Structure formats: structure tokens, C-alpha cells
């Protein structure tokens, strides 16, 4: 399965809905999307990972890269994920401390630090 990406705006947040597999082959596509959004001035991103079937460290690296980019503009990058097998990867790499992870898009778009 390939990677699917779609974006929509909710208030001042941009929601990136990701589906399929994020791995060494498809991650560059996600990286391009995040870079493009930041270059276009979207600094508050919500990455909805509910449709993600597989995530590896390449995908984690892209998300960390995205976080660095938005933070350079005082922005935010929040994740939406309820899937245990995906959450486990964030836990074992210690990235649950780096990303705010929400259970729904609604919760993520209304969240403030």
C-alpha cells in the first residue's frame, strides 16, 4: 500500500490526514508535504495518523523534521493516533515526550499549550 495525503484547514490549524504506509520509500512524500506547508506559512500542523497502517523510524524522522521546522516559526505539530502498534514506536524511541499525541482531530485542533 502506498501513502495517501490530504490537507484541510480547521481554524488556524492545518490538518494533514495520512493513510497507508510510512516507510523509507514513502516518507520523502510526507517530508515534501510538511516542508511545502511550512514554506506556505502553515505553522500549526495536526498530523492525523488514524489511517496509517505502518510507520517506521524513517517516518518518525520526517515527523521530527517537521516539528523542528514549525518550531522555527514558533508553530506546533500535534499528532492524532489511537493505534497501539503505532504508539508503541513513539514510546520505545522516547518521542511521546516530544510530540503532543491526541485521541481525536477535534481535541488536537482545539488544544493549546
Amino acid at each position, binding site marked *: 500500500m502506498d501513502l495517501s495525503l490530504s490537507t484541510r484547514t480547521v481554524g488556524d490549524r492545518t490538518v494533514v490526514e495520512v493513510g497507508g504506509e510510512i*516507510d523509507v520509500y514513502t516518507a520523502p512524500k510526507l517530508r515534501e508535504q510538511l516542508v511545502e506547508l511550512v514554506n506556505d506559512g502553515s505553522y500549526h500542523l495536526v498530523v492525523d495518523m488514524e489511517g496509517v497502517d505502518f510507520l517506521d523510524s524513517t517516518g518518525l524522522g520526517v515527523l521530527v523534521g517537521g516539528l523542528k521546522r514549525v518550531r522555527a516559526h514558533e508553530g506546533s505539530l500535534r499528532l492524532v493516533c489511537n493505534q497501539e502498534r503505532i504508539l508503541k514506536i513513539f514510546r520505545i524511541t522516547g518521542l511521546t515526550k516530544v510530540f503532543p499525541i491526541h485521541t481525536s482531530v477535534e481535541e488536537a485542533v482545539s488544544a493549546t499549550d
Partner: protein
Amino acid sequence: MATVELRFSALPGHVRTARLVAAAVARRVGVDESVLDEVRLAVGEACSRAVGLHQRSGVEGTIRVALTDLEKRFLIEVEDEAGPILTAERDAGAEPEAGEDDLGLAVITGLVEDVEVDNGAEGGLVKMSWPIANVPVEA
């Protein structure tokens, strides 16, 4: 001799194939269903790392994935041909974004209890194994 052996050119597009084959063989030899996701992820990480090593070293070559049924353990070996791991050189050179190589190893070591990262004949060699929970039912 490996139960199933897979060789592919060091390109990102083939990593998914390796994941699928490894998970299918793991299921076939009787690795518990609950750890198949871990097997799939760990093999993917090891193969992604191997592809990355090839890309960064600029060495074309083949990645070998050997899947071996050891009766009580299921052994997976992922071997690249990217040359010896030169830690000092790597540290001095350009790192991939967010240290993807380190993240990959963190995922593997976090997931797999029995893992060994070593030098193979022409590059790196990652060995991982899982217990075989039950005797597979013959079709």
C-alpha cells in the same frame, strides 16, 4: 541453510517486499501472531538502515535477508554490502535528518530482545531472533 533467502538491490522500494516476506515466513514457521507486527517492523528497520548505509556510502550492492527456522527460534539476518561501519567517519559526516539511523537502531533494540549488530563479509550484519511459539499446522 536459510529457510527462505531474499536478495534485493539496495533501493527503498524493495524494503516493503522484505517486510511482507519476513512476516509471511514468520507466520508459517509458527512465530506467535502477537509478535508478527514486531517482526515486520524490525525487518523493515534493518533493511531501511541497510539501504541508507548504501545510499550514504554511494556503494551499489545487494541486501541479503536470510530467514531461518531453527525449530525453537526464528532467526532473521539482514546483511548489506556497504562496507565496514566507520563510526568516526559517520560522526564527522552529514547526518541524515533527525538521526534516522540512530532512530532505526533504537526501534530495533527496543523491539527485539535478541539482537546483534555486527560486521558481515562486506558490510553490516543485523541478526535478530524470536521464539517459535507453536508447531505450525500443515495445510
